[in-house]
């Protein structure tokens, strides 16, 4: 939690010695608060003050990265409890498991299945972002083999899942240059696991059955020199997991309780693909930094990934679609042309209703900076000029033979000016786009 200038001032020597270059300690404190000065500039500051100031400057939730290169993923640094306060910072990493019980073709097939979980949604690539190799065999050698096989297949960010320090050491030795996340250290294995993490410079998961035990464990691991920690609640029902994840979020962000100031990881192994999707979706919404699932069904991943995308979108910035012409169905030179705005909600509603009409059409999306039709019109972002410009820019004249433009019913008032600006016949569409199917089927014809 950042300190105010006055709070910092109280920690300074208050001698106004000017050695820092500022006329007074208060002025220096103000500069510190705005991060324009460094504490080192004050030669007389006490160790206690140094510690307090350093602690206050650190983010309440630690940043943790694993993986390398373009595939590297980043967790943590969250600042709020509710998404309407501010954008959630590090989108949940969805990971799928690869068991080390698999060998040969089965192993390869599984890895391929995991690696194929990539999709494109509204122009953005989304997909599985880490692979969790699980030590189900209980032995070191298969674990090493499976980890190596996953690494060889595209070097995705790895999560090594084992409770055995021996197996962990063996696998890390093989893939340490991929900077895997080591999962997990328990209160029993903390020392051994922390040693492996420290030697190989890898982040480590701390796993315990309660918030209290978890706090102790993370402190213990930190004391061993491992700073990059991810928290895992183990052996709890999904209800207790969700309640505790919320409590961790509040304790780390609102109470700045450092032992819990780390991102979290959750494992969803129980139940079929449908149940896993349900549980994983709740964990995505409620603060899990990484969610590991067993299912590799694309029909399960697509909604989970979309949930991450939606929950982690910026609440201050309306989601926009690219302003261009969208062909719906397979329109031709005789198909209807209509326009709407680039506010994603507006566009999707129109798109869905045009699709429902089963009349192939062109939707021209005018850039209104992500505002809806009425808002854009009142804000003068939707007027005869912006529409005419969008028509020219997108070559509407060459797309269709006719010269008829359907406009949203809410902006019927702009018909006259738009007709002058474009020389197109303006047809006023319905106010509610749920009436579009009927309009297209009856009025357009």
């Amino acid at each position, binding site marked *: 939690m950042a300190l105010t200038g006055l709070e910092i001032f109280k920690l300074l020597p208050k001698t106004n010695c000017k050695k820092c270059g500022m006329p007074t300690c208060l002025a220096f404190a103000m500069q510190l608060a705005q991060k324009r000065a460094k504490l080192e500039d004050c030669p007389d500051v006490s160790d206690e003050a140094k510690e307090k100031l350093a602690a206050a400057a650190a983010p309440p939730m630690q940043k943790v990265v694993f993986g390398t290169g373009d595939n590297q993923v980043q967790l943590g640094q969250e600042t709020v409890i*509710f*998404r*309407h306060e501010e954008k959630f910072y590090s989108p949940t990493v969805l990971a799928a498991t690869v068991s080390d019980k698999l060998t040969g073709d089965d192993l390869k097939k599984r890895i391929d299945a995991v690696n*194929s979980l990539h*999709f494109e*949604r509204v122009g953005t690539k989304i997909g599985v972002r880490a692979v969790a190799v699980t030590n189900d065999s209980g032995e070191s050698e298969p674990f090493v083999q499976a980890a190596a096989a996953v690494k060889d297949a595209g070097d995705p960010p790895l999560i090594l899942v084992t409770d055995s320090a021996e197996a962990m050491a063996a696998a890390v030795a093989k893939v340490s240059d991929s900077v895997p996340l080591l999962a997990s250290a328990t209160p029993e294995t903390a020392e051994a696991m922390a040693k492996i993490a420290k030697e190989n410079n890898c982040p480590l998961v701390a796993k315990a059955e309660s*918030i*209290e035990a978890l*706090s102790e464990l993370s*402190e213990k691991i930190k004391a061993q020199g491992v700073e990059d920690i991810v928290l895992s609640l183990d052996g709890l*029902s*999904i*209800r207790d997991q*969700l*309640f505790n*994840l*919320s*409590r961790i979020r*509040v*304790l780390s962000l*609102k*109470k700045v*309780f*450092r*032992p*819990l100031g780390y991102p979290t990881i959750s494992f969803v192994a129980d139940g079929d693909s*449908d*149940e896993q*999707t*349900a*549980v994983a*979706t*709740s964990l995505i*919404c*409620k603060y899990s930094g990484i969610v590991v699932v067993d299912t590799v*069904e*694309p*029909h*399960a991943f*697509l*909604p*989970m990934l*979309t*949930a991450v*995308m*939606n*929950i982690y*979108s910026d*609440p201050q910035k309306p*989601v926009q679609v690219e302003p261009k012409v969208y062909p719906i169905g397979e329109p031709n030179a005789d198909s209807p042309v209509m326009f709407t705005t680039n506010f*994603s*909600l507006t566009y*999707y*509603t129109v798109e*869905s209703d045009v*699709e*429902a009409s089963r009349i192939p059409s062109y939707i021209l999306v005018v850039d209104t900076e992500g505002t809806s039709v009425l808002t854009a019109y009142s804000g003068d972002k939707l007027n005869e000029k912006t529409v005419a410009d969008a028509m020219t820019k997108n070559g509407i004249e060459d797309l269709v033979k006719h010269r008829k433009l359907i406009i949203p019913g809410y902006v019927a008032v702009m018909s006259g000016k738009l007709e002058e600006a474009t020389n197109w016949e303006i047809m006023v569409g319905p106010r509610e786009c*749920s*009436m579009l199917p*009927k309009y297209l089927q009856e009025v357009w014809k």
Partner: protein
Amino acid sequence: MPVPEVTDSFTGSVNRITLGATKENGGTRSSTVAVGGAQNVVYGGSTEDAGEKPVVAMDVLDSKPEDWPDALVKPYKDVLDSPGDWAKMCVEEFGAELICIRFEGIHPDKGDKDASHAVKVTEEVLKAVGVPLILWGCGNDEKDNEVMPKVSGAAKGEKCLIGTIKEDNYKSLTAIALADGHFLISEAPLDINIAKQINILASDMGFPLERIVTFQATGALGYGIEYAYSIQERQRIAALSGDKIMAMPVICDVGYESWRAKEAKLEDAPGWGQVKDRGPMWETATAICLLQAGVDIIRMRHPRAVATVKNFISQIWKG
């Protein structure tokens, strides 16, 4: 280092309401459904603060739907033109806790059926099932004003949830719901201020705020769910901070919205998995997301999604 206490300073809670009237209470329902009562945000505080468990209301249409995707038609193919049998199937086979009759067929563009038809459907469903009912108009103000009061009368004393009232069309339905002893759904287009306004308008007509459920509009996963999610979270926080105008339980329309999504409908989408799985999953994930923000009644359609969502709810909420 001891873990600090987390204390919440909430002064309010979500209203608790009981839908449906049994014989003792002047109705014919065999069961009632209590919703609301949360005293904290979702997963905040202790499990006791979570209030009543959220419930699933399954949609029954008054007329056979013409535009439903195959995957959604399949489980209902033999009952789609018999609302009574349809409702019975939802309750007995799929565990619907409420039935929502959606009167789509009265819409001027979707069949333009009259009040006598709507009344007949209502009576049929009341007879076929014992769970409380939700009676939901077609969205065309004029037609709803003509038909829904008759529907309300046909279910008089059953303590149904009837809607929706909107900012510019609330008077006739509010009056009749008051007279017939029903609960009201107030609808706002993802706008907290409009939501408040409608509740005030209904209240000014003498309708008790404690008998209102709010519908803030629903966006499906991938189609604006983030707006619904945040509005729902903000409404819960407002309720907890003592705002009586926003202390209503919340209903959302997951079935209709999620089955409009391309991901649920598109037959041929290589790499997305089979369409028969995608629809139910889209509906499931939409419902689960909204549950995290705080909703009390979820309108749903596909039995597979209903089963998964009910199973999830039973693992989280007590009772």
